[in-house]
């Protein structure tokens, strides 16, 4: 049983840490495939990574229901930490969550389990924060779409065998769709619904 005193801390400087984290995420979203760094330091409840903890402290609040995957929910640490620092409701049903925190990519539910938004309100969709092994090493992907000058190359080790199939289905739903934020330690890469991903040959 973790008491509040034992709980990992939030940002030391809430205002400026949230701002710098947001700018990293905004740059990542605006330039898909580019690797942004999160500099702000906070306490991190296991199995969250530094980056996902900072994003949680920056974007979660009482208006954003959060869904945790089995690995995140294995101990009450993460849910407690999120509730204490952000007041965000941690909910059991993934279909209405604003954010989903995924520690184990292999166990990522189908995208249909989350919210795609509606044709009238495509912004009311889930942002999945997916923790991955690496965003600098691993198989190479080619990214195309808004925010990218031609082609961007991303090397990442993402433990999700059907990633490309899922993303190509997701792309067909536009303007509805899921936005992905990949986190590896302090590195962040965003794959918004407009980005087209293909495996790089050779």
């Amino acid at each position, binding site marked *: 049983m973790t008491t509040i005193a034992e709980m990992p801390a939030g940002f030391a400087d*809430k*205002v*400026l840490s*949230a*701002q*710098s984290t*947001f*700018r990293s*995420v*905004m740059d990542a*979203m*605006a*330039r898909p495939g580019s690797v942004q760094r999160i500099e702000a330091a906070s306490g991190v409840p296991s199995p969250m990574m530094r980056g996902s903890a900072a994003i949680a402290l*920056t*974007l*979660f*609040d009482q*208006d*954003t229901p959060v869904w945790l995957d089995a690995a995140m929910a294995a101990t009450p640490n993460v849910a407690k930490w999120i509730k204490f620092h952000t007041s965000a409701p941690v909910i059991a049903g993934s279909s209405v969550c*604003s954010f989903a925190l995924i520690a184990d990519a292999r166990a990522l539910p189908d995208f249909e389990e989350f919210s795609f938004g*509606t*044709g*009238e*309100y*495509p*912004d009311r*969709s889930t*942002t999945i924060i997916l923790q991955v092994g690496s965003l600098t090493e691993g198989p190479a992907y080619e990214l195309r779409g*808004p*925010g*990218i*000058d*031609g082609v961007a190359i991303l090397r990442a080790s993402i433990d999700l065998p059907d990633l490309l199939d899922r993303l190509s289905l997701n792309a067909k739903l*536009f*303007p509805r*769709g899921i*936005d992905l934020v990949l986190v590896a330690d302090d590195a962040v890469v965003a794959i*918004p*619904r*407009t980005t087209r991903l293909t495996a790089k040959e050779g």
Partner: protein
Amino acid sequence: MNAPTYNFAYLDEQTKRMIRRAILKAIAIPGYQVPFASREMPMPYGWGTGGVQVTAAILGVTDVLKVIDQGSDDTTNAISIRKFFEKTAGVAVTTSTLDATVIQTRHRIPEAPLHEKQVLVYQVPIPEPLRFLEPRETETRRMHALGEYGLMHVKLYEDIARFGHIATAYAYPVKVNARYVMDPSPTPKFDNPKMDNCPALQLFGAGREKRIYAIPPYTSVVSLDFEDHPFTRYKHDACCALCGAGESYLDEIVTDNAGSRMFVCSDTDFCETRQAEGHRGSESAPYAENRHA
């Protein structure tokens, strides 16, 4: 007594989080207007409350802010917003387009090309391009959902039927990433081509109408037109009287009661930079002597 202090960049953190989430969704869905809970700001609606809220949500201590109003750094609106952020965020400010990292603008896009390290924040009065054609929000929302933009083409066609050409000169509708029709805010259509494939991120904030939308960098932005009436830029057939520029957007200034007029660059930084480089127009005073007198 303590001097009153503000949270960094004026807005409270809860508001910033809400705006930041809206900005992220706006970037993910280029051209789509994301509703947000716009706050009252210490300035009236119509003075850029939407742009100010977007700027406040993204601004950091290392940013360098430039604010322009119709291209000018030294009009009332631009100065008061620049001072607002100097006071509440303590950020560095500049009038140089090149040096700025965040540029808040009312109704112009700077002449100097923007680069990747910049964010351009537009102040938007009426974000819905279809609003004057269809007053009901429920209907315009459905039209966007279905990509049903025939009405907008009818409007442009009626321009041609009545005037012989597309007479819309500002707030000229564009299609973003081949999907959403978007109002570029009341920028002159001269500026529309600068939005296409721009290296900088473009964010739009409408305070009274409570909408935020975005164009990510390197995104296709096409001005609506017809094959036989292609989109054309418009500018006065003149050169700047102060710097001699022939390619910039010009303001027309009436100089006496007899109808005399002169044309000058609307972008003051562009004009001053050119003058400092030695360019001269028809009305220029001898610049160097003037400056060091």
